[in-house]
């Protein structure tokens, strides 16, 4: 090694330079890495979601969508609220299969998210046309929430529903492809047919189906 003393494999100047650079690098990493983790942490943190009471079974029919407000994010007021359009499942037109969990039959009520699958504006249900219409870019969905026209890339998202304690409960969101097969929740604008389900993989932080053994009890009615 040129410049090194007898029997040494590296010159002392080179060694000192390396030590100084390493020390600087370690010092910079000591504040950069935690800060980066701070910023990226939420991507990997799964958000909890609890069943919420929507109403009584009598509130819903097969023919009319009820507009229900639910809380998606706690503690941030109006910004954390969202809308579900809910009706009773009609076996004559709703061909997607039911499934059961812990003895509960899930999705006996169809709860469509108001989030448009083009870019996330809120759709409204137009009763006369039996269509969901988005005000932003003209997305249209039919009675089952399937795309009937405009730019949306997949049918409206849905919420899990179940009936217990004489009440209808609403759970977390899930996404569907054009066959109404269930997928973990995706953001708007992400198609799930064909290659789409691989281009837009599921995420680490979306809510999963919460346990059904711990449903919130309905409010006490005074005098009963």
């Amino acid at each position: 090694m040129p410049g090194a003393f007898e029997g040494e494999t590296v010159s002392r100047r080179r060694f000192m330079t390396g030590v100084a650079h390493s020390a600087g690098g370690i010092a910079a990493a000591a504040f950069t890495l935690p800060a980066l983790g701070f910023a990226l942490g939420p991507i990997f943190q799964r958000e909890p979601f609890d069943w919420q009471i929507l109403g009584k079974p009598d509130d819903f029919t097969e023919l009319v969508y009820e507009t229900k407000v639910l809380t998606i994010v706690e503690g941030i007021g109006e910004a954390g609220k969202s809308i579900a359009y809910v009706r009773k499942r009609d076996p004559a037109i709703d061909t997607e299969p039911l499934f059961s969990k812990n003895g509960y039959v899930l999705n006996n009520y169809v709860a469509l998210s108001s989030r448009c699958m083009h870019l996330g504006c809120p759709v409204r249900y137009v009763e006369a046309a039996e269509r969901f219409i988005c005000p932003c870019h003209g997305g249209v969905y039919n009675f089952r929430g399937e795309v009937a026209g405009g730019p949306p890339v997949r049918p409206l998202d849905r919420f899990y529903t179940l009936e217990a304690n004489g009440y209808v409960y609403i759970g977390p969101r899930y996404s569907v492809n054009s066959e109404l097969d269930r997928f973990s929740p995706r953001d708007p604008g992400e198609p799930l047919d064909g290659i789409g389900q691989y281009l837009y993989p599921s995420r680490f932080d979306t809510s999963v189906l919460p346990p059904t053994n711990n449903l919130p009890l309905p409010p006490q009615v005074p005098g009963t």
Partner: protein
Amino acid sequence: MPLPKLMKGAAPAGTDLGGQEVLHPVDAATEAGLTVVDWIDERTQLTPGVRWLMFRKVPKGINWAYTLGSATLFAFLNQAVTGVFLAMYYRPDVNGGAYESIRNINDNVFLGQFVHGMHKWGASVMIILIFLHMGRVFFFGAYKYPRELTWIIGVVLLILTMAMGFTGYLLPFDQRSYWATIVGVNINNTGPFIGPYLGDFLRAGPEFGATTLSRFYAIHMLLIPGLMAALIGFHLYLVTKLGISAPPWLKAKEPESVVEVVEV
């Protein structure tokens, strides 16, 4: 023994009683200023740098289009200054406090509506100026060798300015800014593979949540402005170092020594 004090005007103008010259107060103040400048300059040696930056040779035929870069710089400075003072009153509280603080700025704070307006309209002015500046550089061919890096940094600055517009749009936190941000984040999500995670990063979660607003605020007023200030500094260094390109209609004159005159 000190001499007795004489009436004003007893000594000739410009001298004291001992016959020494005295300075007029205005001259003395000028002198004091120069002394301070000299004191700083002797320790910093800044004069050559300032001269290098300010007194440059510019090509013949430059016109008003060459001032668009400076105009963009001043638009940036306007945004920086008004933004700093808006931050004194703004509160990134997602539970209605953000909207209330903007309403307070507009309705109650002295000159609040004006400063807010300067920031809001200045943002649009900056976008317009940056595109005009970019158009000037493009159509004059000023991006060519050796100024490619200046162009690349300029494009990064354009993207950062757009990101400033995107993050700043949410801050008033009214219906328009909320839904515009929902749509904007969802556009980010449509990028294949990393899009969904990019959206989660911007929102700090799968939904618009409790920290989305403060995250946008931090990006808007700390992260990007710092980055932009550094890049603008480097951009200006390159402009000074490489000089300004001549307008394309100005033909470079061949020196007479290389022109061969042929008698026919």
